[in-house]
């Protein structure tokens, strides 16, 4: 048995980072990392350092019958979390999160948000609706953030329930919580809209553009006031930057949307207003945190 060199965490190869991010213990030599399988527990889970492909020689967990890559690993991990939370498991945690985020437990479960035992796994999808990213909603220095699995790219929230053939208007919001809050309201009151969430205002994959061709699109981003500099200059940030970035991408695409509207906070035409708190978002409006 070759002796494994224990390297510093900082030197972790990119190919192993997705596994490490989801709790797999990664100690590696030049070629392989052999560790405990996160699915069956056997010490026969081998990850090739060069390619990032993984295989368990005991349970042979796989989508294709030939091991896992980072995308299929995420999907299998999510399946495992779904199984662990089946039959309304982890109910207490769901109720706390639902209370905190202003949505119902059913909404969280329906969106595939799963308790992992230490934090929350939030799935995100590529332009074709396939899960290719699994965020972890964790506490980082007194606040909770959604961290992406490294090297797996950006994913869109809610794409799994998006119907490309539907003629309903499409609302694009920022983040998973705004998306869930809006989706819950829309479904509760049978409104004819679809909603998806992008992971950040500066993140919009070109492959997502085809989803919106010929549709009426609404951009509902946060009310972010510009940053004021000492010399009096103002720099747009947050939601306004997102409007420019996403709006221009949509308009310039080969199949542009039929129309693009935006949430004009306060009717100023600027995309933000001082009448509302800085950083106010769609969820704040729907839950009543912002007075309208």
């Amino acid at each position, binding site marked *: 048995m070759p002796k494994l060199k224990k390297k510093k965490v900082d030197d972790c190869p990119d190919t192993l980072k997705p596994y490490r991010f989801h709790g797999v213990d990664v100690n590696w030599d030049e070629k392989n990392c052999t560790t405990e399988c996160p699915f069956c527990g056997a010490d026969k889970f081998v990850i090739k350092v060069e390619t990032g492909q993984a295989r368990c020689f005991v349970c042979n967990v796989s989508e294709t019958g030939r091991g896992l890559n980072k995308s299929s690993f995420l999907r299998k991990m999510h399946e495992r979390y779904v199984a662990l939370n089946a039959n309304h498991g982890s109910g207490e945690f769901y109720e*706390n999160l639902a209370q905190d985020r202003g949505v119902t437990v059913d909404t969280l479960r329906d969106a595939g948000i799963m308790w992992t035992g230490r934090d929350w796994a939030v799935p995100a999808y590529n332009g074709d609706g396939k899960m290719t990213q699994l965020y972890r909603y964790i506490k980082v220095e007194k606040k909770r953030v959604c961290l992406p699995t490294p090297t797996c790219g950006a994913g869109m929230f809610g794409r799994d329930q998006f119907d490309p053939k539907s003629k309903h208007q499409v609302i694009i919001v920022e983040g998973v919580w705004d998306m869930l809050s809006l989706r819950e309201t829309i479904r509760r009151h049978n409104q004819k809209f679809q909603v998806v969430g992008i992971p950040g205002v500066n993140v919009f994959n070109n492959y997502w553009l085809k989803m919106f061709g010929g549709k009426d699109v609404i951009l509902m981003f946060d009310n972010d006031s510009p940053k004021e500099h000492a010399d009096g200059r103002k720099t747009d940030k947050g939601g306004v930057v997102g409007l420019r970035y996403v709006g221009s991408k949509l308009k*310039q695409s080969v199949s542009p949307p039929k129309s693009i509207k935006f949430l004009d906070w306060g009717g100023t035409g600027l995309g933000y207003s001082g009448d509302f708190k800085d950083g106010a978002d769609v969820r704040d409006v729907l839950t009543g945190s912002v007075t309208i």
Partner: protein
Amino acid sequence: MPSIGSKGKTKKRSSKKVAQAPPQSTGDDLRRFQWLLDQLSPLPDEMSSDCNLGNQDKTQECDDYEGMIRQWKSCMRWRDEMEQVLLVMLAVIISTEQKGDQLFLMLLANAGSGKTRFCDALLTSQHCHALEHLTGFHSGWKGDDGEDYSLIARVDRKTMITPEGDVLISSPSFAQVMSQQRRIFDGKSGASYKNQKEDKNYEGLRTPWIIAGTHTLMDSDQSRLGDRFLKIHMSSPGLDEKRMIQERVAVSAFESVMEVSNAQDKELNEGKMAKAYQMTGGFVNFLRDNSQTRIRALMSINVEEVQELCVQYGEFAADFRARPNLDENKESNDTKEEPNRLTSQFLRLMICCAAVRGEDTISDFVHNTVRKVVIDTSKGRTFEMATEIFRAGELSMRQLYVVINLPEARIRKFIRFLIAIDVVRKVDVKMRTNRGTSRKRASVYRLTTRVKKLMRMVLNEAPGKRAH
């Protein structure tokens, strides 16, 4: 970072606060949602002009067909045939998203004829995709984001253009590419990989394809495999015309060499040519945005007449696109395709050509253009033989050996093939000898009545008179 635990079980952690039910809906959220909708405004242009997707727009707005042609005339030695070629290429583009059989086009012309210029002009539009050095339409590769990197996913709803088709046919994967395109023509495509559980299948594809090249492209005989391509030839100009073109090219070259090239983008320094490119790209954008309106303007045409004409065109091209299997060991031999696909393509082409020109009837120019495509699509040895027989009225085997530039054995094989597909019939005629006494029998070959009628209609010529 702690591991998940043995055998994949999660470790239970106790929650710090008592769970409370989320707020019940009181209808207030609907009111708030409505408030959000009331705050909506159209996104202004100044808010959506920052980002560059990477494809800089090289087009200029243009919705006038005649204006675009005038611009081309101002920078090239123009012939009517060139307008026909450009018209057909634009017709392929406007047909992209219309239902029905797609239009695949091969543009054949000698080197230096201007075909690459047309292709490059069309490629200034984002609705066209340059297809060069192609290895295949499918890829099993998955990127970091799990997206489908197959070419076929990227070119859907665009017109593929290959400016140098000769490079394509010399590629080792040419046969594979052509077999894939036959299925893509039907709007479907699929791939199975031995290292993937799921097959990739695409449906509803709209990917018309224009390949430009020299006549070497005709050497790739696809007739037996179901050729999907219509063809149009750009013939070489006459000698005087050639001299005038060369003089014009020389003037242009002199002007160009006097200026420094813009190395950032390989652009032409001749302003008129650049403008012609931009206007063509802009006109392509206009056609794609208004295809429905332009095509529907032709709803009042005499449909039966056009349909009857295209049925005959389809039959004509099916007859002459057929080729015998020259390998005698092969089982498949004397067959020809059914004319249905060709009929559909010719009718589509006719309508789309008229739509490009903004007409509400089928003009003579469009009729002549489509007739040219029919003839060019049919060109080849089969057509050459039949045309010689048509013009002569009848020909004996000896006469065929003289007029057709092929070995005798090949000519005999072609004639047998033409008889088998009911294009030619063998007739024994009685001949008087010079002395006028005894009679001698000879075999001659004539076109069948059906084909003669078709040729008269398509070639617009009267058949030759028989010697007997």
